């Protein structure tokens, strides 16, 4: 097999979809762009760009505190976006908090646990559990929390195949654990760990759970009630939405019990110079003027995703991943990092190519219009684990095509020739 002339089963009608994404028409270095870097940040359809422009052109004003018409329209659009996102993850609207990105969502929780009252407060005798597979945004906040509170940071290790090693789950998650935070889909390995097993163990010992769903929410159905975790975070720019917006979902009772994080306008009930009381959730965690246009853009993104269907998107990416795994086998000296079958992974393929440094791989691919990410992908411990300085990563989304996989494979052959 050397090209994708036959249509793969499960693919979406990408011809139609790609018409909605102006940037995918671009040329790069005189070649048609093959954008294989959606795991870093996806592109946006015209519907999302237009929703934001129209908002600014027709309806903008600050939200909540106005009685004038624009303020009411802006508030209705902003809160309407919250409704859409709540429906998208099957949550009550009060449990959907707008943040600036998932990094902030995670930091928010880590900070709360540092200042909360019992039983949530993390103290010197407590343990925080993460995994070796995490993005820096789900490592550093917990390191900082551990430093500030004296708590101990522990983690699950990766096995040689890119799976979490859960064989010692009972000694990693003990009854000293206050929080277990982990990614439901790795941005380097594509690994999707067994959520239920980890969540069950965490709850058995009374620990809270936070799921980093940055790489899942864009690609598959996400039902926070079914998952049974306490917090779930994800980020707008990876799911067709704008930059500058992320989501933290949390159980309402919990959020009500926990202290505030950032203070300011919007999050208060009443303020005197001496003291303040706080608004109910979600507003308690939304200090200052919120990302209004960004929320509206993310609402439009969610509409778009749902018009295609998350199940269909997952199928499409699955088919592409299977195809890519097959085709990459043709490239000599290519070493895939992480699980080897499409069943075990998301549409994220990291690999090394002989001893050619990923920077050089990426550069030569770019020359051919193929955009991939190179480096440690903000998950340096994964590279350390597998003894490699960095990887080249190709990632797919609903607009990706087999022809782009072919362009990648051809590009890699050119790279090998170039550095031969």
């Amino acid at each position: 097999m050397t090209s994708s002339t036959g249509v793969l089963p499960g693919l979406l009608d990408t011809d139609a979809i790609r018409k909605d994404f102006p940037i995918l028409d671009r040329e790069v270095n005189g070649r048609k762009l093959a954008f294989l870097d959606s795991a870093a940040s996806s592109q946006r359809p015209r519907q999302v760009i237009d929703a934001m422009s129209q908002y600014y052109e027709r309806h903008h004003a600050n939200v909540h505190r106005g009685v004038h018409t624009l303020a009411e329209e802006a508030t209705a659009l902003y809160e309407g976006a919250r409704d859409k996102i709540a429906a998208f993850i099957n949550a009550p609207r009060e449990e959907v908090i707008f943040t600036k990105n998932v990094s902030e969502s995670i930091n928010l929780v880590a900070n709360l646990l540092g200042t909360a009252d019992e039983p949530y407060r993390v103290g010197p005798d407590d343990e925080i559990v993460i995994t070796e597979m995490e993005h820096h945004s789900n490592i550093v906040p917990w390191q900082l929390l551990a430093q500030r509170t004296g708590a101990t940071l522990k983690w699950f290790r990766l096995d040689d195949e890119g799976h979490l090693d859960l064989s010692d789950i009972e000694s990693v998650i003990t009854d000293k654990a206050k929080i277990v935070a982990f990614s439901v889909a790795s941005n380097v390995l594509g690994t999707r760990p067994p959520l239920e097993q980890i969540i069950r163990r965490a709850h058995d010992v009374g620990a809270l759970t936070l799921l980093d769903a940055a790489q899942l929410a864009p690609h598959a159905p996400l039902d926070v009630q079914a998952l049974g975790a306490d917090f779930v975070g994800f980020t707008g720019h990876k799911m067709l939405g704008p930059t500058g917006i992320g989501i933290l979902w949390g159980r309402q009772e919990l959020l009500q019990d926990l202290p505030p994080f950032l203070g300011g306008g919007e999050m208060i009930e009443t303020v005197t110079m001496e003291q303040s009381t706080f608004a109910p959730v979600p507003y308690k965690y939304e200090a200052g003027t919120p990302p209004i246009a960004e929320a509206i853009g993310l609402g439009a993104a969610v509409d778009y995703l749902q018009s295609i269907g998350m199940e269909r998107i997952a199928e499409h990416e699955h088919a592409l991943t299977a195809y890519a795994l097959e085709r990459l086998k043709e490239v000599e000296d290519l070493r895939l990092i992480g699980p080897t079958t499409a069943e075990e992974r998301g549409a994220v393929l990291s690999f090394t190519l002989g001893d050619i440094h990923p920077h050089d791989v990426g550069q030569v691919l770019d020359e051919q219009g193929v955009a991939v990410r190179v480096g440690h992908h903000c998950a340096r411990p994964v590279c350390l684990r597998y003894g490699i300085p960095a990887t080249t990563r190709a990632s797919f989304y609903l607009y990706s095509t087999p022809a782009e996989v072919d362009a990648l494979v051809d590009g890699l052959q050119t790279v090998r020739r170039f550095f031969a």
Partner: protein
Amino acid sequence: MKLDSMYQDVILDHYRNPHGKGLRDGDAEVHHVNPTCGDEITLRVRLGGADGQTIEDVSYASQGCSISQASASVLNDLVVGHTVAEALATGDVFLELMQSRGHELDRSDEELEEILDDGIAFAGVAKYPARVKCALLSWMALKDAASQAVQKEQERKSA
């Protein structure tokens, strides 16, 4: 003028001459704030009657716009002399009306008028989301105060 649908004469009358305003003795007192605009109300409920379940008085001190003032006045008309259960049921119907955003409700106009009396004048307010909270402030306070008063009553009984 579209405004007239919100500022009906009935509402302006209640605003200018609020019924039952002022703080008198009560079995429970609550303080509610609308953080959006700073409207505030302190509201007391006094229970009585054979089973201690009848609202004998609702007294209040409040600060706010015409809508929130008028709403407290209408509330006073609608609930004093009724049982807590009746008052809360009336409150639910008022809430329904306020959340209708000007759309048709399942109930007929006659039925609404029967239950809400002057309260149906607030139908026009439902079209202004930012003002709905003003209209609901006193009703939220009532719900809170009534449930506190009932609880105290029960504690007294079982003590």
